[in-house]
């Protein structure tokens, strides 16, 4: 059987995603109506050989995660388990730690997928490629193209175009190495465990040497934790050039890392577009019955339990969550409205994310600025900009945290509002605590 391991990280990760990740683990954040890892599990489940999915992360057991796993098991009819790391073990440390669980019953290879990416992942084709080129003792990494400048923000892969062999791999290089970058999706044969074991022993040695030099008051830093292994640094870059690591390029199929609110809106758009091809029943279609159904433009997902007034105009690229209530004359465009929100009459939401349980008053305008990739450059990715520039907040997607109440007739432009806040006045380019 084939297994997939999805690395979902922990609360220390995904901090750029706040305030959305303050009360909900980032991997469970809904994009286009379904949690991020739901889309990843769905991609894996499309391969009939995949019978088990292991989620490895650092989150304490929580209700949301358990509920998600229970529901997902039922929907996909495959086994899904959550394995909690006792401390952050790095991207590969968990794989080594739980090696016995992963190794049991697998035929040859297994997938490892980063839990904060999204895309139209060609897992079947990658598996086919892997069987032909890397079967037995080889490893395959999924690659995509980026612009020269942006490639330095990712793991860069230098490869032989004829054999697809990876010659060199550098994580976030300072100078240009290659436009091909790692997607965070790997297909490892069982021999990875030997490599992990060797790495673990090496690290242990270094750790012991270092700690013997320190005083006994030295407090261990998780970065140098004995069991911490990183896929990119410790595994991939070592395998590059050995003739055992191959790259499968995914061409110009959609791929993006989800680091910030801006990338969520971008991913929302692309997943909704993908629904047109794979799951058209998820999209709401414009009906002729103008008296009872809202006007829909482009791709829109509306949860079946949401209540939308017929005079509202939604889209393009809008996702409405469970039990949301959209009042009359509301306009929503390029935005995500999470569950149980109430949007009152005549309000206008553009390029924003409205958190769970929030209320937007009548005639209020919530507007953000999209941070889309440069349309002039092929393979351009979303810019990973910092929050501030020259001391001022960069215009970005407006994020309203959960349980926020915004009164009527105000404007929130390029604002970030933390959860459980009551807002009575307008705000532009500000973070509201």
């Amino acid at each position: 059987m084939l297994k997939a391991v999805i690395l979902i990280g922990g609360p220390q990760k995904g901090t750029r995603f706040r305030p959305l990740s303050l009360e909900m683990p980032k991997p469970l954040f809904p994009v286009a109506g379904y949690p991020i890892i739901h889309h990843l599990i769905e991609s894996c489940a499309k391969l009939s050989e995949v019978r088990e999915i292991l989620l490895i992360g650092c989150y304490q057991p929580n209700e949301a995660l358990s509920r998600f796993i229970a529901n997902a098991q039922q929907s996909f009819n495959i086994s899904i388990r959550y394995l909690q790391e006792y401390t952050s073990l790095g991207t590969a440390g968990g794989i080594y730690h739980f090696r016995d669980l992963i190794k049991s019953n697998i035929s040859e290879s297994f997938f490892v997928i980063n839990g904060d990416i999204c895309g139209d992942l060609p897992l079947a084709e990658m598996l086919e490629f892997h069987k032909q080129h890397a079967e037995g003792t080889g490893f395959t990494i999924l690659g995509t193209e980026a612009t020269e400048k942006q490639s330095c923000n990712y793991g860069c892969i230098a490869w032989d175009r004829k054999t697809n062999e990876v010659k060199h791999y550098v994580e976030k290089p300072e100078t240009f190495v290659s436009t091909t970058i790692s997607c965070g999706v790997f297909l490892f044969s069982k021999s990875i465990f030997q490599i992990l074991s060797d790495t673990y022993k090496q690290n242990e040695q270094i750790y012991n040497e270092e700690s013997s030099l320190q005083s006994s008051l030295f407090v261990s830093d998780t970065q140098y934790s004995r069991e911490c292994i990183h896929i990119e640094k410790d595994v991939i870059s070592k395998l590059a050039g050995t003739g055992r690591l191959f790259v499968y390029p995914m061409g110009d199929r959609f791929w993006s890392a989800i680091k910030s609110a801006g990338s969520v809106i971008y991913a929302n758009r692309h997943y909704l577009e993908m629904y047109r091809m794979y799951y058209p029943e998820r999209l709401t279609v414009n009906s002729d019955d103008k008296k009872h159904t809202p006007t829909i433009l482009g791709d829109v997902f509306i949860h079946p339990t949401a209540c939308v007034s017929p005079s509202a105009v939604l889209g393009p690229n809008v996702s409405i969550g469970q039990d949301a209530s959209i009042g009359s004359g509301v306009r929503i465009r390029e935005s995500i409205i999470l569950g149980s929100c109430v949007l009152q009459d005549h309000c206008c939401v553009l390029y924003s994310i409205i958190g769970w349980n929030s209320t937007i008053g009548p005639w209020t305008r919530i507007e953000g600025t999209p941070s889309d990739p440069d349309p002039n450059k092929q393979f351009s990715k979303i810019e990973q900009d910092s929050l501030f520039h020259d001391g001022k907040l960069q215009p970005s997607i407006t994020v309203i945290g959960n349980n926020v109440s915004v009164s009527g007739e105000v404007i929130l432009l390029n604002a970030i509002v933390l959860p459980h806040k009551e807002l009575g006045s307008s705000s532009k380019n500000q973070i509201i605590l």
Partner: protein
Amino acid sequence: SSRVCNAIHYEADLDMNCLHRLLFGYEKSSDNDDRYHIGGATVISQNTFALISQNEINSSEARELDELFKILLSSYVTIKAEIEKRDKNGQSLCIICCSHPIQAEFRPCAHQACISCMCHHLMTNNECFFCKTIIRHAVDLRGNIIEIGGYGTRLRPLTLTKPKPLVEFCNKPMVLHQIEALVQAGVDHVILAVSYLSDMLQRDMETEAKRLHITITISQETVPLGTAGPLALAREHLKTDNEPFFVLNSDVICEFPFGEIIEFHKKHGHEGTIVITKVEEPSKYGVVVYEINTGKIQRFVEKPREYVSNKINAGLYIFNSSILERIQLKPTSIEKEVFPAMAKDEELYAYELKGFWMDVGQPKDYLTGMGLYLNYVRHSNPDRLSHETCIVGNVLIDSSARIGERCRIGPNVVIGPNVVVEDGVCLKNCTVLSDSLVKSHSWIANCIIGWRCIIGQWVRMENTTVLGLDVVVQDELFINGGTILPHKSISESVTEPKILI
């Protein structure tokens, strides 16, 4: 021709020596370099460019070039001499138009030009021609602030397509508020002193004159005459009988108690009465110091640093015709020159205005004044205001306007003739001039929407946004303090106050 030569020579960057070098390969005045003599002929070195020695130039063209330069040079010498002579006499020409003498300077940068060029420039710019400094105001050569523009520049962009007296305030042309009040007090001849005469104004005033059975004369100044000069210009009309005459600043709105003002004036029997009003921030204006019992004015203090008085000149006066002896036909300021002299002669008295007062010559004040006026209407004639279900506070809606469902209109809103407001619109503290359309679900506060505008759906406009004639704002935009000139289509939000030309 001399006009062409003038134009060429007034180019700041033109240097005759450079031109000579370009044409002939050497500078006329220097002895150095690229020239050398071979058997009596002057030759220039191969490396130096000279237009005249290019292969493409034939000999007759070369002769023309020679001629051209000679003409330019001689006109240059002449012009230079003239300029020097004029500068000696202290009178230079405006270098923008080269036709009028320099008459004024910008402040704070002190660049000079003629008044006509300045007026033209100020219609669409507020930066100095030469250095791009923001212009605060202009002064004449003696340092007095002059009123230029008279096109109503403060109420741009509305006054770019309609003379200020005809711009509607609360659904009636501004000048008509004053004219109708004057007619009620028994005035039968109104003189409009303008600096720019438009056909629109002439025609409309002819119609109004017929309707009200009065005479309306338009007195146009061809050069700026300040605030007192226009009276001298209209002398013949004012001296017809020995009755006193009113002088009104056209931007002023109040209850216009002209009857009582006439009584007060006749009672004290002196030469002039100024209407004064109480304001909260008197130091922004000029204050009036006067005897409370008699009303006799003692003096004026311009922008006082310490509290002197809270009464200011309201811009409404009544004079006996003898005042015309004090005013000559030249740029004169009534506040700075005439009034102080009258106060010294103890001929100037103050009438304290009751009720509201506002100078509505600027968009922000226009909106404040609108609120005050509507409040006055509520107390004097409440049936004029609208009382439908979607109305909040004082709202004036023309009978030909159409309002949609589930709107919220008010407080302090004026809607002009033939305006259409679609469903779900919220309007607060704004004026919508005639024939405009506001589409559904928009939210508009503290704005002036011009004539024939189209505001899209889900638009948000606030912060004293002013739209000129025929402006189109696309759906879902946010306009925060935009000043939009006529015939413009806006397709992007304006998040910070800006002027869009």
